[in-house]
């Protein structure tokens, strides 16, 4: 079971929870299960999202595997100049 930390607008999409527990082996599985648990999260996913796994930020690679016990943060997708 992964502890997934939420911040920014993602927190309010999860009823204000700072973290949620999800069983997932990949980013894709994690996001699928989160949306099932918190349907409002879909709007955040549509806006763009990034996932930090042990400090490494993944914006696009949803096949990325997540090791058991990893530090996982869901972050809004950022833009750059």
């Amino acid at each position, binding site marked *: 079971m992964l502890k997934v930390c939420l911040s920014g607008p993602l927190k309010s999409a999860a009823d204000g929870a700072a973290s949620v527990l999800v069983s997932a082996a990949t980013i894709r599985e994690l996001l699928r299960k989160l949306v099932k648990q918190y349907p409002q999260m879909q709007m955040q996913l549509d806006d763009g999202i990034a996932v930090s796994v042990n400090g*490494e930020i993944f914006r696009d690679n949803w096949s990325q595997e997540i090791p058991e016990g990893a530090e996982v943060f869901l972050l809004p997708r950022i833009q750059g100049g």
Partner: protein
Amino acid sequence: MADDPKFKDRKFKMVGTRPPRPDGLDKVTGRAKYGADTFAPGQLVALVLRSPHAHAQIKRIDTSKAEKLTGVKAIITSNDLPDVTNGDRELYDTLENCLARDRALYDGHAVAAVAAIDEPTARKALKLIRVTYKILPHVTDVDAAMKPGAPIVQPRVYTRGVSPKPTSPSNVAKVSEFGHGDVEAGFKAADVVVEKSYKTEQTHQGYIEPHACLASVGPDGHGELWVTTQGHFVYRNTCAALLGMDVAKLKVTSSEIGGGFGGKTHVWMEPIALALSRKANRPVKLEMTRDEVFRGTGPTSSTSIDVKIGVKKNGTITAASAELRYQDGAFPGIWAMLGAMTAYACYDLKNVKTLGYDVLVNRPKVAAYRAPSAPMAAFAVESTINEVAAAIGMDPVDFRIKNAAKEGTKSSYGPTYGPIGIGPTLAAVKKHPHMREKLGKNQGRGMACGFWFNFGGETCTDLNIGVDGTVTLTVGTVDVGGARASLSLIAAEELGIPYERVKCNIADTGSLGHNHMTDGSRGTFSSGMSTIFAARHAIEDLCQRAANTWEIPVKEVVWHDGNATAKGKKHKKLQPLSLGDLAAGSENTGGPIAGHSQIVADGAGVSFASHICDIEVDPETSATKVVRYTVIQDAGKAIHPDYVEGQFQGGAVQGIGWALNEEYIYGDDGRLQNPGFLDYRIPVCSDLPFIDTQILEIPNPNHPYGIRGVGETSIVPPLAAIGNALADVTGVRMTHVPMSPPRIRKAIKEKQA
């Protein structure tokens, strides 16, 4: 493994050298083709009619007289760009921003466009279009827009990020909270708490080349677009979606680019040019004037920020918080959210909380500007950091070093840091001779730190080997700052051939798989990684061909210094086969030799910088001149150091202009008062000293060469570095950017009073 992104330390032969850039000759001789430099047979000239009002209902647009004018071939309004966005909120915002629908939302909002045989005719036609407006109340200030009773900019926008879900529209589009720990407990534990409020004004990226494009759409639904952009693949997708075209039927070619800095990551008038061309069935050229660039494209946010920092007398920060209010223009963005994420990223904080408010006002849609949103947050935080250090009698550099983030620090925006460079940049500041140079009369010194995320993304690269052994490298990320030179160096390094044997081209969208834009400091990081992989695939092929030629197993062949070499004593009679040898014989070994890579380049390393600044303030006029400036930044690995230094210098110069001069000035009527470079003054060479640089190389573990992005971070510290230098020389803490002579004089007088 060819596609392993993990960093491996190695000795480089090509990487780290400084050969001439391949696009240099064309650029200095005027041969380079920018957005406005291409032409098509029968092309029309397009002009755009823009709203003179900050906020107005568009009751009627009468184009009948203009349509009758000889030489006018097409006129479009929003009716010619029907909504095919299928509920995509962001895409609809883009559509409405390109061409106003029922309301004009800011001074300069496009309401109609004309394509005619020449510019005088198009100009006459614009004057014949009659728009009936009903002027509505407007708001252009971020704090005023948040007050109860402020005019609502977008009735369809309800605040996101709050619970419960609001039931009425608001100018606060989004609230974003970041942080960890207990800030209230942290402030209680502090010996000293400093609170300050700041404002920063809106600035434009100020790229020298205005937006320009040549669009051509035929009756068969096929189209082409030549355009100055930071991301032609993204422009293709967005334009195709807005016009209801098939992506594959719109070919977009990026011209050379005369600066972008984030402003050319969004479409502005390109869909208009395509729609005009579709209606006229002729190619259409559309170039913006500088006035239009200021009024009708995307500057950065103006802001209002409150900062609170608590500290122990021994210099340990116990808590830090900030409330950041950023205006997004007339369409929701993520700019305050980015400010809230970056504000305290340089520090190791037990208790931290930031709240970002993205606010709508009647100004142009805000776009990214080099490390978007970070400079304003850094101005507020880094100014306060100096105030806190002074309050406890500690040297501001030592104070920063004591509280700097490091590997294992839980960042203020969430994740735990890997190896990072803030500590080393601060250590370099301490050692730098600049810090020991004696200051002159009326001079002061300041320093400040800055952070930016960097990111990677979708990237596709081809590497083709010609029959003479020269290499064509084809990438899809636009070369904004010397990337073709850097990527050629990388290809040469991998293949073991001279730099001069590689030619790097930027492909059009019909010639390569999708590439994300050149933004987020990703160009050399992403396309560099993709180039390495493509070259390694080509080397695998080359080794196989050598093995076939020698009739030995491929596992007995290695690639070394540009040659296939057979391993072991038993093959000592086999002379190495060079890239040229294998290329010359390719016809009989399998045909063309190529390498390809299609990747998502994730794992971009975060970037930190520390800047030192000396200024001189005229005691009579308060005019401020930068007399010495040093940028120290972590590059991960500098592939072509000239262009890394160029990025450091360019970012610093833009930050200096922002700090001292640049601002959008709106009148009470909501109209922009200074849409030109005479009244909106950016720094020029004669205003500045040589910007000194020091490159640090702390490898990014997620790139084969250790590359981090370098393009953006250096714009982050200058605002605060100059503010801190001003405080040093005048004794006054400036809290409003730009720190122009009238503001400095006012602040000094207020202190003296």
